[in-house]
């Protein structure tokens, strides 16, 4: 089959590789019909996530038709059209029992690597480094899906791929980002990052009853989508001081909750950003946390700081004094996608949200390497790329 594989930082190549086979009894093999490039794929692509190796197949947002099932599967059947959740979860451990699927204790065969870096291992993830399991990803013609009964949802007839594809990651991730804010009537929610996850977080904040939603970015095309499609207010941080503007917009209170939908490769315009950039380049810290710092400083006292942007390791100069003295609550996590697939599918079916609004590029799998460049450089107003194998 053809698959988009990692070559070196800033370079992927579509290669011919062996077709996947059933390795465990609860596996399914899916023939992929749609797959997407995620903002977090760029962290891999840019070389900021440890344990990515040449030849690794990328991609954790995919869907397709089940063509083969292992003898231990009960629910998924050959011929089912399914969307696949990006975290791999066994469904039977303590964490899965609490619906904390992205913390599954059994799905990462390389847990030992993650334990060294993080103390304990999170769940395995498709196409997301060896530390996260060394699973082949979904930017390919076929993928092996372990624990297929737990990690897939069947798509009802009549719904298109593009309507449901984002249930694999970005819609549930944005939704969880908003849900963690525990939104109350009258709440103002500020979201850093108007990329796909940020846009879904904004849309979800409205679905969950927010009074006002404010999106912060520097790319005008993205701010426009936030205004026009999500009805958010926006701040371009290159033109306005974010702290002052937010205080002005909220009568000096600050947003009730803030969402970091950017993560470890944040941009910024302050001196502190430069320091972080240099340290990250020298591998002295893995992550550039300037968005997180700003979000904390802006959040009203007693509010929630919700982090759904991806961080991989260590950060510097974390404003713990602000967090502690002002009773802030930090909520975070890789999305427990399996928990949200069904209710969010229902919301799409009822027409409460149309997730296709952020698709800007459609291409063939063969164009994946070029699309990574377009997406990384935010050329051509690129927000979300969907690939067809």
């Amino acid at each position, binding site marked *: 089959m053809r698959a988009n594989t990692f070559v070196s930082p800033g370079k992927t190549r579509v290669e011919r590789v062996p077709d996947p086979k059933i390795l465990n009894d609860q596996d399914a093999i899916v023939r992929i019909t749609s797959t997407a490039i995620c903002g977090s794929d760029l962290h891999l692509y840019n070389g900021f996530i440890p344990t990515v190796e040449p030849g690794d197949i990328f991609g954790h947002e995919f869907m397709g038709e089940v063509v083969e099932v292992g003898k231990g599967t009960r629910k998924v059947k050959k011929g089912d059209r399914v969307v696949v959740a990006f975290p791999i979860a066994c469904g*039977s451990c303590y964490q899965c029992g609490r619906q904390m699927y992205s913390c599954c204790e059994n799905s990462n065969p390389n847990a030992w690597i993650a334990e060294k870096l993080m103390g304990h291992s999170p769940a395995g993830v498709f196409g997301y480094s060896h530390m996260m399991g060394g699973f082949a990803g979904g930017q390919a013609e076929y993928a092996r899906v372990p624990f297929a009964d737990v990690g897939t949802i069947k798509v009802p007839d009549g719904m298109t791929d593009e309507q449901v594809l984002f249930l694999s990651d970005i819609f549930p991730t944005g939704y969880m980002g908003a849900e963690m804010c525990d939104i109350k009537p009258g709440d103002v929610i500020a979201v850093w990052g108007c990329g796909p996850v940020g846009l879904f977080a904004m849309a979800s904040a409205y679905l969950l009853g927010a009074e006002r939603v404010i999106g912060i970015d520097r790319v005008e095309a993205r701010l426009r989508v936030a205004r026009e499609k999500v009805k958010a207010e926006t701040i371009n941080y290159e033109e306005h001081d974010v702290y002052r503007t937010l205080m002005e917009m909220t009568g000096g209170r600050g947003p009730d909750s803030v969402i970091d939908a950017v993560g470890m490769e944040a941009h910024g315009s302050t001196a502190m950003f430069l320091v972080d950039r240099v340290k990250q380049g020298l591998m002295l810290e893995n992550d550039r946390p300037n968005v997180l710092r700003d979000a904390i400083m802006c959040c009203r006292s007693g509010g929630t700081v919700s982090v759904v942007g991806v961080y991989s390791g260590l950060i510097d100069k974390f404003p713990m004094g602000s967090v502690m003295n002002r009773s802030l609550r930090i909520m975070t996590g890789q999305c427990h996608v399996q928990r949200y697939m069904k209710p969010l599918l229902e919301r799409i079916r009822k027409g409460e949200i149309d997730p296709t609004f952020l698709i800007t590029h459609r291409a063939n799998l063969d164009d994946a390497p070029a699309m990574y460049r377009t997406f990384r450089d935010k050329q051509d107003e690129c927000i979300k790329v969907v690939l067809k194998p």
Partner: protein
Amino acid sequence: MTTTHLSPRPAYPGSRQLPRSRSAIDPEAVSGRGDGGERLAKALGWFSIGLGLASLAAPRGIARLIGARGDHADETILRLVGLQEVACGIGILATRKPTGWLWARVAGDAVHLSLLSGAMASGPEDPNRMAAATAAIAGITVLDAGNALQLGRSRRPARRAASEVIKSVTINRPAEELYRFWRDFRNLPRIMSHLESVEVEGETRSRWTAKAPAGMTVQWDAEITKDVPNQLIGWESVGGRVDTRGSVRFAPAPGGRGTEVHVRMWVDPPGGALGLWFAWLFGESPDQQVSDDLRHFKQVMETGEVVLSSGGFDGTHIAQRPAQPPGSIPAR
């Protein structure tokens, strides 16, 4: 049922003192590393103090030297940098383990680099000189980082091939089930990747076959020394050249969290070629080995199988095969 054990040794492996001898794989015994690293560390320490004192005493001169404008803000920054350099320098020279201070130096270098790039962006007085200063500090950063890494490595405690490993895991199943699986030693190769087979040869006696390099195997007999149903199993090797003992204890975890499994294993490697092989097998990371085996135990008991991924077939080796489907299915 409790069996009496045949050997005069206590059944509980932890109750015996570990030998303190250095083994053949002690990294400090085989390499003379550390000497050159310390000399370089000292030199960097003095360099820190010199640069720091100069920055404190004559910030304007230093500013001119690196091609910055030398205005008031630059001076303040240079004084702060000077303080930090002096502190690092003293730290490196004064401590016997300068690794931490060397890393502080690396961090300081990074700050300098970023300050320089900031000054460059805001229009330096002399871009050529500034670029030279940047290059110099970047070079020193590399020295610092290399030095810190080198010292960090050689200061790591020596590994012993003879070792006791204590590991625990919590499994979301009742103790009876876990006990039943473990008590039938024939199940163990399913979860212990270095075992090829275990044959049960009587109520308490079993024959273990482990994988060795180049397709060879090594065998030993083991005797069950303690057996408290649903609570404890202890075993130890008898005769032969392989001296290994272990015990596994099952205890209910609080609040319905399943069962805590506590394992203690002890391996005293024999001499000669076999000893080297044991060093390879257990000495590299016996801790990791047992920890992986317990993870497999948990996977088998909770999900029914050992979870495989394309990149993970080689087990706990840093160099893994790429995360893409294998040409053929590996045996397990």
